[in-house]
């Protein structure tokens, strides 16, 4: 087990009695990540690019070293294929607003799955509306909760411009077969946009195995600080796309009449970036790989399965995932007759942190016939004690509601 890593997380040390089961919303940060970022501000800080002095060169080197490290982590040898953004949401908006605007025309189609986070749903819905294109929503199998591949196959046509799909549902934890999706999309000349925000904290990612056109992630869901996200784009796309924002650090030449832009990724990084965020993600990746994503996945799945088992034993708890499908720490459930927000409030009162609501995935929640769900999400720093506390909390909730 990974018990010994728990002490690396100051929030858990500084809040004794806290059972943090909301890592799918955002993970806590290990001390080493905070220290490396802090060290940057205390020793090496300066604005990057164009600085002709050592401090700025050091800052630039740290920033670009992060790019190289993240590229390696996701399985590409081309650091320039990574654009740094604020979060996964911005990465997705960037795609829709640039190449999306370029290639989607009236009558074209965009395919999304019903289990997308709003971040990979609303930008496409809005793009389709602007362009008079069609948004096709592919469902999931109601039994396995897996993406309905047959439905995707019959939805895709020669008019499909984008297939946008999560790599791991933030509500269900299910992980679509991206290799199949990618192959299918290529066959029809559609571009793929994979949302890896919820995948990459738990599963080893190697984009060279399925060759996505675009892929996004968020640092704060994988031990880095908030405010830093990544967009991977195939170099040929990035080269052909117009910039998203314009301003400093992304231009080649500005005259009163005309502006020419730098090469990617600078073309997409207007203004002073969040260097500390890049450094924190670099440190987080080192930390994650030092433990090993395999071990993390094994650990969190074991806890989720244990919780699943104990919740089933209570009765009155509706569990959406089949135990045999659990292979990460995400566990959605509901208690009959008690609204998820009341569950979460009672748990919260006991310092057990879970999320309740639509989880920014309303289309999925409605598809499942619910108003809302409770989600407990386990990560590397959780322990069996957290499972026990969750169970005690659920029992308390039933008591409060006289069930």
């Amino acid at each position, binding site marked *: 087990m990974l018990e010994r890593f728990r002490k690396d997380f100051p929030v858990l040390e500084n809040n004794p009695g806290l059972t943090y089961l909301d890592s799918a919303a955002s993970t806590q940060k290990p001390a080493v990540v905070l220290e490396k970022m802090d060290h940057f501000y205390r020793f090496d800080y300066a604005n990057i690019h164009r600085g002709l002095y050592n401090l700025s060169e050091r800052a630039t080197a740290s920033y670009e070293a992060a790019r190289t490290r993240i590229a390696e982590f996701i399985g590409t040898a081309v650091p320039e294929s990574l654009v740094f953004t604020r979060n996964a949401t911005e990465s997705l908006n960037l795609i829709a607003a640039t190449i999306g605007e370029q290639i989607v025309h009236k009558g074209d189609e965009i395919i999304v799955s019903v289990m997308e986070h709003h971040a990979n749903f609303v930008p496409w819905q809005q793009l389709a509306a602007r362009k008079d294109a069609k948004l096709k929503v592919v469902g999931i199998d109601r039994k396995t909760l897996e993406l309905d591949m047959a439905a995707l196959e019959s939805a895709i046509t020669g008019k499909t411009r984008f297939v946008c799909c999560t790599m791991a549902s933030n509500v269900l934890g299910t992980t679509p077969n991206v290799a199949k999706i990618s192959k299918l999309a290529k066959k029809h000349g559609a571009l793929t946009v994979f949302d890896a925000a919820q995948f990459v904290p738990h599963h080893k990612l190697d984009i060279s195995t399925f060759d996505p056109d675009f892929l996004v992630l968020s640092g704060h869901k994988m031990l880095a600080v908030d405010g830093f996200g990544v967009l991977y784009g195939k170099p040929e796309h990035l080269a052909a796309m117009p910039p998203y924002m314009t301003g400093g650090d992304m231009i080649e030449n500005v005259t009163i009449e005309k502006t020419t832009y730098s090469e990617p990724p600078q073309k997409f990084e207007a203004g002073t970036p969040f260097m500390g965020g890049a450094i924190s993600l670099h440190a987080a990746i080192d930390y994650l790989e030092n433990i090993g994503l395999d071990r993390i996945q094994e650990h969190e799945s074991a806890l989720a399965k244990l919780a699943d088992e104990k919740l089933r034993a209570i009765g009155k708890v509706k569990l959406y995932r089949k135990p045999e499908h659990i292979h990460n720490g995400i566990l959605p459930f509901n208690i009959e007759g*008690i*609204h*998820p*927000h*009341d569950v979460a*409030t*009672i748990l919260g*009162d*006991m310092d057990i942190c879970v999320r*309740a*609501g*639509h989880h920014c995935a309303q289309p999925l*929640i409605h598809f499942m016939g619910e*108003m*809302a769900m409770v989600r407990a999400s386990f990560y590397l720093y959780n322990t069996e004690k957290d499972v026990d506390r969750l169970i005690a909390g659920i029992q*308390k909730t039933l008591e*409060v*509601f*006289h069930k």
Partner: protein
Amino acid sequence: MTTQLDNMYRDLILDHYEHPRNCHELSNVNSSEEGFNPLCGDHVDINFEQKDGKITDISVCTKGCAICTASGSIMSDILKGHSVEETDRLVKEVKAYLKGERDIEISNWPPSLQALSGVRKFPIRIKCALLPWTTAELALQNQTKQK
């Protein structure tokens, strides 16, 4: 469990949650409004029947959390029979009280209404308790405008 929590989930609240009052068809709807709380997905549907400036009947149907449902149910019990003006004043008072905007003496409130006070210790849930009240206010405003 903290006493604050106990205070919020009083038996009276839970009873209103399990058995919400006054969700029924009105023969004559003079004003209505739907309310929505994106936080919880709470949804409330309010209809008023009025005559001579008085609320003669009210229907409140909620799909939502215990706090929102109970709040709507309690409200429906209280407003019936009041004048529109009184109602408007009470709604404003309850809103101000829940939001903690000013000190309000609640000892002369009906006991069921006093039972809502527990939510004040849970800032993020105040919205749940408020939803039926703000929706009722909108319904009455719409009606006023229509005149």
